[in-house]
């Protein structure tokens, strides 16, 4: 459960509008370009787990795998693009007014749900209202929404109680998935949990728990002819078996590979796709608040020493190979990147000095907990080994499933190696983690320092009137978090890995962002 989180930021009117227009055209252009596409066939996709929850969009928890399963059925109001911003998707376009605290959405015409009903303003309002009532992420993302209003048949207006620029980003994920209200009212919630009814190119026709799901194409898809007859998701618990299955042609693509399998497949000549927007970030979190007063990580010098002691380059190379990027702040590779953040270079001598200064010339013992995935486990083992070199003895706990969850929620000492899925918006992500007075199971809620200047910087970035200010304040927040307070240490940003066979064309898998693909256009060249 390393769901991402987010909260307010500010989008700029001009940019958003421009982007939206462009993308609507390019979507149409793409469809025409694929004229030599062959129709028919079944795309078989290997995944490693069953849906974490049900397939009812309101219930989705934000686990990566839930998004993969949503590809064929759900579309959201906005869609991430390669630049790291979002375009309208089920909307024709939208506008907003920070002064009046409103967003106006113009719903795309001609979109139907798989039960044949039409997506109109009423449907959007119903969905948003419903989400505001039951959705898991209401607090974190949508708390600024006061009410949703139908203006006309295809226009919806959101009234806010305070300004938030992140709403388009929020609606680019499960919060923005549209579910057929008629279908829901008619069949009830219980039924809908296993029978999604979205606007996507396919509809779920069979669900064999823990084995496979089959999605069959819709003839009335708003985006044009769907080439594939169907898409089948097959679950492989064992990574080796799924690689073997790809090689033998039993499946056409594997989603969310681990780095080891990716390496092996690469060696056999398979193309490993990584999205242009990275999807996971890995953070080493310190118990910087040090409530009990006996955790050495309460000392800034200790935290800095630890950061200096780790050779991040080598670590990232060893754990993720070419699929991971070293990073020292949030938003590397976007326009939020700040030169001012120095980060920590690998310098064990300095680490030792700092430790000595902090009063630990002989090091100390500390715990490091993380979740049971091969990447986190390897990374933690490597950290342990580096810290041993400066005299810090790390006791590792690798926790699985519920243990990890509970441990993270109740994390109270030492360090935590955190893997988090990324939201497209950098300010949204940072604000969701480091602002004061957060509730719920937000990262290190009881353990991380939440200094006032960080709070101020993040608040400003969310309220910022223009992009420059946002960039500046995000940069400042990053500097404070990393250099000044060393609350967390950014290790790496990693793409989700996809292995897709050559003959799978235009699938969009692994192209832009892990939560979206373009299965309506996909076709098989065999």
């Amino acid at each position, binding site marked *: 459960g390393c769901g991402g989180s987010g909260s307010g930021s500010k989008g700029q009117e001009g940019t958003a509008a421009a982007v939206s227009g462009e993308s609507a055209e390019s979507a149409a252009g793409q469809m025409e370009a694929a004229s030599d596409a062959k129709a028919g066939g079944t795309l078989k996709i290997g995944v490693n787990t069953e849906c974490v929850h049900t397939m009812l969009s309101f219930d989705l928890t934000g686990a990566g795998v839930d998004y993969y399963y949503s590809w064929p059925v759900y579309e959201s109001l906005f869609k991430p693009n390669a630049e790291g911003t979002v375009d309208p998707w089920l909307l024709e376009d939208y506008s907003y007014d920070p002064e009046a605290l409103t967003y106006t959405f113009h719903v795309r015409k001609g979109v139907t749900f798989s039960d044949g009903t039409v997506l109109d303003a009423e449907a959007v309002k119903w969905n948003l209202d419903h989400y505001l009532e039951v959705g898991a992420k209401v607090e974190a993302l949508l708390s600024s929404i006061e009410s949703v209003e139908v203006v006309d048949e295809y226009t919806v207006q959101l009234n806010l109680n305070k300004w938030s620029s992140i709403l388009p980003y929020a609606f680019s994920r499960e919060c923005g998935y549209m579910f057929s209200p008629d279908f829901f009212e008619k069949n009830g919630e219980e039924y809908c949990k296993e029978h999604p009814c979205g606007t996507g190119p396919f509809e779920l026709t069979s669900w064999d728990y823990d084995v496979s799901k089959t999605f069959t194409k819709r003839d009335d898809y708003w985006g044009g002819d769907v080439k594939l007859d169907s898409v089948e998701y097959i679950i492989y618990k064992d990574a080796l078996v799924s690689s073997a299955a790809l090689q033998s042609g039993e499946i056409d693509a594997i989603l969310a590979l681990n780095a080891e399998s990716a390496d092996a497949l690469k060696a056999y000549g398979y193309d490993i796709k990584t999205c242009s927007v990275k999807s996971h970030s890995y953070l080493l979190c310190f118990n910087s608040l040090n409530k009990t007063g006996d955790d050495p990580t309460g000392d800034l010098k200790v935290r800095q020493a630890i950061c200096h002691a780790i050779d991040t380059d080598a670590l990232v190379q060893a754990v993720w190979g070419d699929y991971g990027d070293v990073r020292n702040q949030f938003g590397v590779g976007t326009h939020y990147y700040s030169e001012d953040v120095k980060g920590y270079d690998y310098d064990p001598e300095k680490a030792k000095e700092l430790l000595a200064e902090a009063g630990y010339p002989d090091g100390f013992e500390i715990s490091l907990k993380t979740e049971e995935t091969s990447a986190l486990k390897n990374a933690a083992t490597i950290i342990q080994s580096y810290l041993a070199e400066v005299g810090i003895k790390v006791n590792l706990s690798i926790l699985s499933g519920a243990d990890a969850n509970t441990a993270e929620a109740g994390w109270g000492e030492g360090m935590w190696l955190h893997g988090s899925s990324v939201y497209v918006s950098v300010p949204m992500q940072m604000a969701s983690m480091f602002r004061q007075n957060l*509730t719920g199971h937000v990262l290190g809620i009881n353990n991380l320092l939440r200094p006032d200047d960080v709070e101020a910087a993040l608040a400003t970035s969310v309220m910022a009137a223009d992009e420059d200010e946002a960039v500046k304040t995000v940069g400042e927040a990053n500097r404070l978090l990393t250099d000044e307070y060393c609350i967390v240490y950014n290790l790496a940003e990693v793409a989700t890995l996809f292995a897709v066979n050559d003959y799978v064309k235009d699938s969009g898998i692994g192209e832009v962002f892990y939560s979206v693909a373009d299965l309506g256009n996909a076709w098989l060249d065999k």
Partner: protein
Amino acid sequence: MIKYVGKKIATAAVLILLVSFLVFILMQRLPGDPATIALGDAASAEAIQDYRNSYGLNDPVLVQYWNWITNIFLRWNFGKSILNARDVTTYINERLPNTISIGLPGLVFGVLAGIIVGIISAVKRGTWIDQGLTLIVNFFLGAPRFLVAIFGVIILGLQMHLIPLQGYTAPWVDFGEYVHKAFWPVVVNAIYTTAILARQTRSNMLEVINQDYVRTARANGLSEHKIIFKYTLKNALIPVITIIGLQMRNIVAGAVIIENVFNIPGIGQMLVSGIQQRDYFIVQGCVLIISMVTVFCNLFVDIAYGFIDPRVRKSMG
């Protein structure tokens, strides 16, 4: 006989009840909160409380147990999965047959192969055939199951294209397909049983083969074939049956690994993820149903005893 069976069933029922209680208590002792897992990191405290209430997780433990167990025995309702709200009953109904359809042939073939190997090495005792078989048997006693499984997949499946890599089709859906897909999982499952039974059969055969009554049979000029299969094997099998009974509970133990490797939607897979995800009702339900199967199988074994050993049959009346 009826009295005996009745008594046995009553004991079994009490046993199952006690098992259910033990499992329930064990699950309570597990650290971790299902609500957190179900709702994700970002869930608010209230949401979690609501969730817990809706599943009755905040009731006193004994009340929870009472609700659970009465639901099962009165309505055959095992509750709902905490994670995805599916009926555990449906789950079990879907999956138990799958596990059995892999585990049972595994057990049967394992037993047959084990007995045959045991006979061969007993009859050829001291020769290189015996030594070779003993070595192989010991090898499989020591080889981690998942390694054996995956080596088969890679060598037989990926490289030689003899078996499919994974997957499962129920025999009642398409028998040919089932045979094709279940072959290797069944073999892997059977190997361990084979090894244990071969050891047991060999030593029992050796014990029996020197008995006076075998010598009598030989002295009366009966053929070697008859001596081994009629005058030795039946006697040697009696202690082996106990082992078979004990192996029943391991059908599922094997399933935990095998189902993981071969993507077989069985009860073992469900159990492991259930334990890891703290899906109380899934785990409790699965363990209970498995225990029921085990207890039932042992009942069956007891009766099977009677068919092989007339001394027991007589006393059952």
